[in-house]
């Protein structure tokens, strides 16, 4: 397989099919429409099932049902659509179902706009579903990484029996880049827990999120939390760029991190030692690594396409050892490298 020029949304869909996705349930919303469009065209050809549901809520519950029956499944949507799916995501997390959710985020709140945004950081990392649960969240910075992360998402979902969200943004969804999609099928974990029919088994497999007995529910919550702690131990991923000798550390994720990289090059040309710290996993967040990376800098600048959501996690990571500043744009406006350069300079003061 050589490189092909593909739109992010289509590449995401193809990566899922190549990974061995068996069922896709979705509902249209811009800017992710090419994901279901591509799935509707090609998933059935590789033996999978595509359903355009009557709503986002129906789609996530179909995902629940199919995953409970042991199928490898995925859904995709964008901000307001992901909001509608939150109840179902909580149920999937409670029932420990391995599912993949692709979120191609746009402007908000409410209907907002269809332009790129990172205003759904809290939605993705904290979630809007009820209860004590976590969802793994991966944040790609381009088309290639989006396809790699979709594959990784299926792997993680299987390994930990947990919902995994790939949080792209409208830029990744809409842009074309050369991409080489890994077409090796990902072996499916033995899902001995799935409701596949009793057959010769001596017990019933029940997929459920309800535990009315308090001790039983606490045990269940502890089990979910232990699983999360295991994920924290094993699955944190991040990228550092020119950060080892940096005086200024900029934290950014997704496509905006590439704009920050270009700002860092300009800053370096002007003699200001800036570096980038890019979380690739938003959950689990690289708290320890970011803390370590900020030890020798003058300050940390968190740059997001929001009014400051990841900022909270950056502050938790830095934990007061150096000042943390913020720069953000919203509404579909994407900051320019020069804005980041100016923000850094303004915090450096008279130098």
């Amino acid at each position, binding site marked *: 397989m050589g490189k092909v020029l593909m739109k992010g949304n289509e590449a995401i869909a193809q990566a899922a099919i190549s990974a061995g996705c068996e069922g896709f349930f979705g509902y249209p919303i811009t800017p992710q429409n090419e994901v279901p469009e591509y799935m509707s065209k090609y998933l059935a050809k590789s033996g999978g099932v595509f359903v355009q549901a009557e709503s986002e809520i129906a789609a996530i519950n179909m995902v629940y049902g199919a995953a409970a029956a042991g199928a490898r499944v995925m859904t995709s949507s964008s901000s307001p659509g992901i909001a509608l799916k939150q109840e179902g995501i909580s149920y999937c997390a409670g029932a420990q179902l391995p599912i993949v959710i692709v979120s191609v985020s746009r402007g908000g709140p409410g209907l907002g706009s*269809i332009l790129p945004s990172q205003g759904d950081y809290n939605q993705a990392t904290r979630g809007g579903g009820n209860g004590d649960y976590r969802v793994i969240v991966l944040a790609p910075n381009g088309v290639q990484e989006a396809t790699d992360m979709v594959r990784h998402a299926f792997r993680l979902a299987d390994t930990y029996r947990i919902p995994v969200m790939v949080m792209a943004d409208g830029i990744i969804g*809409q842009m*074309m880049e050369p991409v080489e999609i890994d077409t090796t099928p990902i072996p499916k974990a033995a899902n001995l827990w799935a409701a596949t029919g009793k057959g010769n088994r001596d017990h019933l497999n029940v997929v459920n999120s309800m535990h009315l007995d308090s001790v039983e529910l606490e045990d269940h919550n502890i089990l979910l939390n232990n699983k999360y702690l295991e994920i924290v131990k094993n699955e944190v991923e991040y990228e550092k760029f020119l950060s080892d000798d940096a005086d200024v550390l900029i934290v950014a994720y997704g*496509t905006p991190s590439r*704009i920050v990289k*270009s700002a860092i090059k300009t800053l370096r040309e002007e003699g200001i030692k800036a570096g980038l710290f890019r979380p690739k996993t938003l959950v689990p967040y690289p708290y320890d690594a970011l803390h370590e990376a900020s030890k020798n800098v003058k300050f940390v600048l968190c740059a997001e396409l929001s009014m400051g959501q990841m900022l909270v996690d950056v502050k938790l990571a830095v934990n007061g050892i150096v000042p943390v500043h913020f720069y953000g744009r919203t509404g579909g406006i994407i*900051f320019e490298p020069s804005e980041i350069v100016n923000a850094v300079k303004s915090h450096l003061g008279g130098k």
Partner: protein
Amino acid sequence: MKSIKLVCAGFGGQGVLSMGQMVALMAMKKGFNTSWMPSYGPEMRGGTANCQVVIDDAEIASPIIAEGITLLLAMNQMALTKFQPKLEKGAWLIVNEALVNTDEVPSDVHVLKVDFNKIASEIGNPKVQNMAALGSIAAQLDIFDKQDGIEIIEEKFGMKNPELTKLNQKAFEVAYDHH
């Protein structure tokens, strides 16, 4: 190399989006990093459609061209008005002479005027004007030669429509040789 930041803009229907894709495809085949980003959403209806293509031998920092356009293709006046302020000094501007007035373009921008409408009508098919524009762009960028364009057109249209492929290649060549 200095990063190439190309913006192609025109009316919806002038084929600027697919033409930009072909530039990105040519760059990819030459082994460069590249990205293609369309304008999408409400502004596509009625107004200008545009796409941004970045080509670099290093990793592409930003697929969004916020500033410092190095090459602008303006297929109509609105396209020029919208993107002229973002041209860097010494940038190249290719305009569709039939529809674009360049009186207010600053003197530090190189202007190439090509009448894409005329090229297309002489070839006998208005559809080929975007491939003529591709010819002007390819001629302007050192990384491409004539053969790259001929091949990409063959690859893109060859199987589907051999007749149109020939006309597209002709339009490409006429514009490529124009200056």
